[in-house]
């Protein structure tokens, strides 16, 4: 053990320089070539920064498409999930309340059409997406709140569907922030 102490300390110091220092700086330098330069990419509307491209944000107004429920109210400096178990009675009551509240705001929608992603919280509480069905069930409400034809909003949703990777792998989904930015531009 004794003859190992000195090499252990010296080797640890070398590792600190290499893995904390050189490695980090190498990635930092590489990131300068990336979009956003490693600082994060923002989304703009009307020449104003309204969010980060990758991060979901809260939408509760009837005239916007809503994001999913969030266990942390879309706090991007303290993210997290609900960690509720599937059989927890308090949790199930909360889901039921969200369904009821959704149906009150969207009277034209039948219960069986509401997809579960709209009434369950995401893993990080910052999910930027909703499912395609989750966007379509909100169309009538948004169109009524804005006094624009339903077909126009439907077409907008269709244009904003993100396809699976190369059309083959993963889920179809809609980015809520992008959709709402496009919605505000709609005349």
């Amino acid at each position, binding site marked *: *053990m004794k003859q*190992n102490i000195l*090499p252990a300390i010296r*080797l*640890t*110091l*070398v*590792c600190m320089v*290499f893995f*904390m220092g050189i*490695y*980090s700086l190498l*990635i930092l330098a590489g*990131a300068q070539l990336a979009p*956003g330069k*490693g*600082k*994060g990419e*923002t989304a703009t509307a009307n020449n104003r*920064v*309204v*969010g980060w*491209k990758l991060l979901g944000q809260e*939408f509760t*107004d009837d005239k916007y498409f809503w994001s999913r429920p969030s266990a942390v109210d*879309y*706090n*991007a*400096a*303290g*993210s997290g*999930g609900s*960690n*509720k*178990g*599937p059989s*927890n*009675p308090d*949790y*199930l009551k909360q*889901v039921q309340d969200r369904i009821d509240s959704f149906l009150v705001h969207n009277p034209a929608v039948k*219960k*069986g*059409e509401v*997809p*579960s*992603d709209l009434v369950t*919280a*995401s*893993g*990080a509480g910052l999910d*930027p*997406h909703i*499912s395609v069905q989750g966007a379509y069930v909100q169309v009538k409400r948004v169109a009524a709140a804005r006094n624009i034809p339903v077909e126009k909003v439907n077409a907008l949703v269709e244009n904003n569907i993100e396809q699976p*990777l190369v059309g*083959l*792998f*993963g*889920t179809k*989904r809609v980015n809520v922030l992008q959709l709402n930015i496009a919605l505000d531009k709609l005349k």
Partner: protein
Amino acid sequence: MNTEILGVLLMYLLTVALAIPLGRYIGKVFESDRTWLDRLFNPVDKTFFKLGGIDPKKEMNWKQHLSALLTINLVWFLLSMFVLMNMGWLPLNPDGNPSMTADLAFNTSVSFVTNTNLQHYSGETGLSYLGQLILMLWQFISAATGIAICAVVFRAMKEKTTDKLGNFYSYLVRSATRILFPLAVVVALILAFNGTPMNFEGKAQYVSMQGDTVNVSRGPAAAMIAIKQLGTNGGGYYGPNSAHPLENPNYFTNIVENLSILLIPIALVFALGYVIKRKKIAWMVFAVMTLGFLLLLFNAVYFEMKGNPAIAKMGIAQPLGSMEGKEVRFGPAASAYWGVTTTVTSNGSVNSMHDSFTPLAGMSALLGMMINSFYGGVGVGFLNFYIFIIIAVFISGLMVGRTPEFLGKKIEAKEMKIAAIIALLHPLLILAGTALSSYLYAHNPAAYAGWLNNPGNHGFSEMLYEFTSSSANNGSGFEGLGDNTPFWNIACGIVMLLARFLPIIGPVAIAGILAKKKYIPESAGTLKTDTGTFGIMVFVVIFIVAALSFFPALALGPIAEYFGMK
């Protein structure tokens, strides 16, 4: 075919396709054979050895290896304690995050030095950037420790009769610089180009479309996330780990990160074939591991895609499946796949919240950690599997009335005793820990009300999961558990320490003792260990040990919850 399932198939097949050539490369690194990266890394390694004062050619026996390993791990632990308890005033702290309390620093230091990465803090508020960087250092070198000690066991399996098993420091440095470092650079750059932050600035701020002011945590995330996946560490930069949109921006990065979880654990199996020049044994090991992995995977993907039966009863649609704690960009299939890969490999990063898994999918995650050798953590996963091989050889030997021999070495009482102790240690730590915490909670629910986020059987599963994760050096959690308390910090810290180092010491001792024994050439009387029959035998041993140890606990947790929801 469903695009979600296609995604899962793609991830697995791609991983195996890359792991085979990588295994060959790792074998060459272990054997110091020539590789195409030598020109780059020979001078790097030379600098490491020179500045570290190490003679990489000095051969060590198994005891010297363990002594070197334990000493350097102690140094890491002490340094980690110092940084975590003082980072509040140390540099690189633009957000002004506080230092850790002693019990939390103990838990976190043990957790990262033992390659577990159990996190009782949340990255955004609980660490300075220096804290993140020092943890990233442990992610590199604790993973390298596992790989290095695995190389020692490979070497012992290969040699005919010797006690010279290479140099520990040399294996350690070469594993870190030649295996982990180049892969981490590639993965980190892919992440940075897909939008993962890589900077040293404090929080950013914006005003949302509805007029809310939002702060966004950032920092040197991309560098850490790459090595957290590759080294089966799993400790995330952000609290919710790879479910966070900045930590795992899209489906493509999800493929890259998930591939990184399984890549080195599978490659090491093929490295074994290269080092001992017995490819058939490597394929036998791979087949047994894959069979177990697939069984857990089918179960998890099926139940997650089916959705939550309690929500189905409310009459809404579940077109994707169970969505609580999941991200729409990944969906339940890729989340379940991640959940199983991260638990069988002792990685412990997550891209969805395991606490919200449907009961039997949660059981797949639990079983992955309880068995802990279907691929397993980098290096140590094979060490666990090695124990099961020794037990299987012994039992088959008894069954057919032949002397138990493995790779030309007789397995005798001493080796069997060590193997049995190590095989039983893991269930003991899990069950004793869970029993203790359940006892405390059951006798005074008011005093420990902050512990459980869910009532009933699921609450029991939360405690079972925490100890299973600690003992498997996994690090994922049923995160509803209120675990930043002295009880959980200290109890899990002790479990992680025992569960890391004893299962390293045991197999290295067995391999070292066997290596010194007289080599007996194969004859007609030798039990063949590279056949399908022997593979089935190993699988049966693993299954019986797991079933006998864990079925009662699982029956009280996920199984009872499943039937309660029907």
